[in-house]
């Protein structure tokens, strides 16, 4: 019987090719989008679940209660000392992800990300060792364990184990590393993403807690005993720490974060670079669900739109002895068939689109339908359930018609089901207009963030990584300035744009002594404000000759100068500290403001602008070099800079980056989400139009006779068009009205997350709504025009 059902379903599908094609295209688009989004979301959720001890590993998190900040760094001796007193802590590993350059072969250096860990790393994380015995520490040099990827790149035919290679560093002299093993390349869905592991013996100072202070260079991972409760251990740790550190001024609170949450739930840990965004995943999942919902609504609308055609079949079959149950199953089978055909089509699309999505999000998705069997089974089962659930309504409706109504002449199927269809269309267009308005608003906000005047010119500004320039600094700067495209050069202690300055300090609020105010300090040479193109509002710049001349002048000159500690302050700083007169020492800042510059965003636009001070370092011999290039400077210029750098500092590695790129990186996740919303929003709009097409087709079918009679009575084409479109347009306006408050609330909440944001304007809502109405009218016009232009004689004759 099932075979018979499927045969009939297939023939029906084949016979109404246009209808079937619209259905299948709609469903395939919906399913493909859904599968792709599901792959992305599942990968994000799968981080660090593969380690065999994954559910017993926790990361130590420190909350500084004074500043209310969270970091993943804590005094490093905590772990070893705590372990001695508490057996619940089975083991621990202190590690940090670093970037460094190594000379893997003679031709040059390669910059890689590596995990700097202590020996216990092997006990916590079960890396798959392919070669060597790296878990046994080899004395001599720090041990370097490379991944299969590096092995294939640099040692394709040789055994790297036992080889000694050198590092290249701008901070310290080159060190030797002993390669002790090769491990399998780490899966992309791991927080520990790196190309190599460096295992080092730590000096004993790292194992003893000292009340006077402690280094916090590494993140600490705890492996808890099977029966230990992480909250209990964290509680014990806090009491234990303050007993041990009596009289400390620290106001820290420790907590344990499960390893599986490290990637996705570290929103508050600002220093962490490898992390996902739970909110973005929620938005994506929401879009996937909406897409699926719309695709299914479409299917229902398009299928039930054909009730007139199918009613006859139902009637005849009932006369031939079929009862409603049998017909219900038959129509349900049709839905299942449609869904499975669409699923096959979407699998093909998925194969093509997966690499595009992967390259778009920037890393391979290690768990997808091609290599993860459980997700295939799950999606097939889910699809079956979905097809049955979606098929129920059309099946009920199509199996309903009474035989004598359909087979007797001049029958008419009642239009009672149209209320349900209309509700579906309202829902569909509410979703569509909501997505469109949201997408327009997100676009505006992103444009605002990327286009906002930062107060300095980020365009054409490049940064060289930290270098010890030493006594050659001034000569090197001069050398760079001889390149025609280089306009200004400045050495500062500001890692722009990732950091807000050289450092920040909490100081007493000059306006209210109970309050504290955070001030950023930027330490740079005299050329800094020129290189950044800061806008001087009042006073002098730091390169003013009266302030002590070039950086290489001797100290005697500085002493002779009346202004010993000149600073530039921003306008808001001047206001905050009540500085009205320049060149007078300010006791709060402990310096002499000589100039006021326009406010600039030294931090990313995620943080509010704070008082900022630029102080002059007269002997800037180390730090980051900022360079202002003339606009349109090409890679040729970069090569010249590189050549100069390598001539001056041959043992260093040359790392140059564009400040603009760094700024964009800050909002890259949002920009990607924006693209996702736009692409899938487009698909949602397309699908909704298909659904509307179905509904109008249905309405027109029912009104063919009415239209003809009206035309005979003298109605014009325009009048017929208005008649046919009026109702649908009203539905869509209703849908927009339903959507607007919901979207307004959601967008308002989202924008609150940004310090610098656009105001929600009615304009976007009006434009969005108009676009939707226009799209809907265009869609409808295909059918309504045809109906309005048809000759009435034909329709009336067949009646």
């Amino acid at each position, binding site marked *: *019987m099932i075979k*018979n059902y499927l045969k*009939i379903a297939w*023939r*029906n599908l084949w*016979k109404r090719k246009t209808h079937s094609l619209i259905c299948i295209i709609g469903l395939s688009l919906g399913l493909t989008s859904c599968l792709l989004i599901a792959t992305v979301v599942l990968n994000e959720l799968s981080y660090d679940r593969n380690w065999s001890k994954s559910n017993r590993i926790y990361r130590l998190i420190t909350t500084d209660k004074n500043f209310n900040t969270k970091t993943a760094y804590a005094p490093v001796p905590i772990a070893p000392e705590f372990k001695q007193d508490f057996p619940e802590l089975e083991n621990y590993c202190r590690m940090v992800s670093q970037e460094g350059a190594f000379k893997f072969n003679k031709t040059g250096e390669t910059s890689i990300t590596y995990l700097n860990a202590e020996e216990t790393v092997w006990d916590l994380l079960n890396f798959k060792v392919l070669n060597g015995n790296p878990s046994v520490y080899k004395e001599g040099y720090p041990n370097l364990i490379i991944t299969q990827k590096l092995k294939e790149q640099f040692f394709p035919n040789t055994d790297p184990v036992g080889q000694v290679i050198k590092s290249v560093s701008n901070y310290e002299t080159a060190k030797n590393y002993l390669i002790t093993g090769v491990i399998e390349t780490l899966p992309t869905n791991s927080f520990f993403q790196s190309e190599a592991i460096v295992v080092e013996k730590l000096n004993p100072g790292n194992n003893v807690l000292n009340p006077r202070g402690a280094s916090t260079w590494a993140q600490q991972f705890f492996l808890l005993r099977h029966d230990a409760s992480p909250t209990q251990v964290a509680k014990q740790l806090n009491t234990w720490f303050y007993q041990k550190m009596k009289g400390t001024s620290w106001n820290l609170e420790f907590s344990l974060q499960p390893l599986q949450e490290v990637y996705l739930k570290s929103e508050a840990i600002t220093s962490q670079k490898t992390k996902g965004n739970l909110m973005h995943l929620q938005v994506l999942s929401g879009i996937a669900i909406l897409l699926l919902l719309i695709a299914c609504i479409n299917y229902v609308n398009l299928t039930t739109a054909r009730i007139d055609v199918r009613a*006859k*079949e139902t*009637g*005849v*079959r009932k*006369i*031939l*002895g*079929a*009862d409603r149950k*049998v017909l219900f199953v038959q129509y349900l089978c049709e839905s299942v068939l449609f869904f499975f055909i669409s699923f096959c089509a979407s699998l093909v699309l998925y194969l093509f689109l997966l690499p595009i999505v992967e390259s778009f999000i920037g890393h391979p998705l290690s768990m997808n339908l091609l290599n993860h069997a459980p997700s295939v089974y799950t999606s097939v089962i889910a699809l079956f359930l979905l097809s049955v659930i979606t098929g129920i309504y059309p099946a009920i409706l199509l199996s309903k018609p*009474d*035989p*004598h109504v359909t*087979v*007797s*002449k001049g029958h008419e199927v009642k239009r009672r089901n149209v209320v349900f269809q209309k509700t579906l269309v309202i829902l569909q267009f509410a979703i569509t207009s909501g997505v469109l308005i949201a997408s327009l608003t997100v676009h505006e906000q992103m444009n605002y963030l990327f286009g906002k005047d930062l107060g300095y010119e980020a365009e054409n500004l490049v940064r060289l990584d930290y270098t010890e320039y030493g006594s050659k600094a001034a000569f090197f700067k001069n050398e760079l300035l001889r390149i025609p495209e280089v306009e200004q050069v400045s050495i500062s202690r500001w890692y722009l744009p990732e950091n807000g300055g050289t450092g920040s300090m909490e100081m007493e609020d000059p306006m209210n002594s109970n309050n504290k105010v955070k001030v950023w300090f930027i330490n740079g040479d005299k050329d800094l404000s020129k290189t950044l193109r800061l806008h001087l509002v009042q006073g002098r710049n730091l390169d003013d000759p009266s302030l002590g001349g070039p950086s290489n002048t001797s100290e005697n000159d500085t002493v002779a100068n009346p202004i010993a500690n000149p600073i530039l302050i921003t306008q808001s700083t001047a206001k905050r500290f009540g500085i009205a007169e320049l060149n007078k020492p300010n006791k709060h800042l402990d310096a002499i403001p000589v100039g006021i510059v326009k406010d600039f965003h030294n931090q990313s636009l995620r943080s509010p602008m704070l008082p900022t001070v630029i102080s002059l370092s007269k002997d800037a011999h180390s730090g980051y070099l900022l360079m202002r290039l003339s606009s349109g400077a090409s890679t040729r210029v970069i090569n010249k800079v590189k050549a100069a750098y390598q001539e001056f500092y041959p043992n260093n590695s040359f790392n140059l980056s564009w400040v603009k790129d760094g700024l964009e990186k800050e909002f890259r996740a949002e920009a990607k989400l924006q693209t996702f919303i736009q692409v899938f929003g487009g698909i949602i709009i397309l699908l909704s139009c298909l659904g509307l097409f179905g509904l109008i087709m249905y309405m027109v079918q029912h009104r063919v006779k009415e239209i003809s009679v009206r035309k005979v009575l003298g109605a014009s084409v325009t009048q017929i068009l208005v008649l046919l479109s009026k109702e649908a347009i009203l539905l869509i306006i209703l849908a927009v009205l339903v959507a607007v408050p919901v979207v307004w609330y959601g967008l308002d909440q989202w924008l609150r997350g940004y310090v610098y944001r656009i105001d929600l304007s009615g304009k976007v809502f009006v434009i969005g709504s108009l676009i939707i109405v226009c799209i809907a009218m265009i869609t409808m016009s295909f059918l309504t025009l045809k109906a309005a232009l048809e000759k009435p004689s034909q329709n009336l004759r067949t009646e």
Partner: protein
Amino acid sequence: MLIELKNIFKWVNSGGNRFFLLKDINLKIEQGAFISVMGPSGSGKSTLLNILGMLDTFDEGDYYFNGQPVHQLKEKYRSRLYKEHIGFVFQAYHLIDELTVYENIETPLLYKKVSSPERKALVSDMLDRFNIVGKKDLFPAQLSGGQQQLVGVARALISKPKLLLADEPTGNLNSKQGAEIMELFKRLNQEDGVTVVQVTHSEKNAAYGSQILELLDGRIISK
């Protein structure tokens, strides 16, 4: 007695007025009869046929089919009764467009849950008998009107009904095709003993029957 109708009334309410489709119909049909129902449009011919075929309900009166009181039967039994004993032929043929000739004829057997080999035998017999073996794999759209109606009759007969109901079976056919179908009905009635009730507009076709029933405004005016 195959069918007995006693005081059958059927009406619709429109705008507060009761409009009678059938009024006080009393009718007895013997096994093996061939009855032609005639009357102008709207006289209630098709309604009567639908009621006889249990496709439609009536508002008042008793209907006995093969001695069973149809008016008291539950839907399930009624449907079993007509599945077993009644075949339909329509003016517009009402073949299922997506099914071949073979499959169209087979469908009633599927719904009666007849086993596959038995179905095959029965359908082959029927194709033979109607001389349409060569057309068994064609779709209705590929056949002429007369051939389609032939398939329609074959389909109606496949479950060996006692009663064949035909609603203007020749209405869409030319006179030659119409005559063939009428000859077929006559043969079925005489050779196989199938009871036939047909609705027709044509005096000529009505003459094939053994009895003519004339309806006017929902009443039987002559038997």
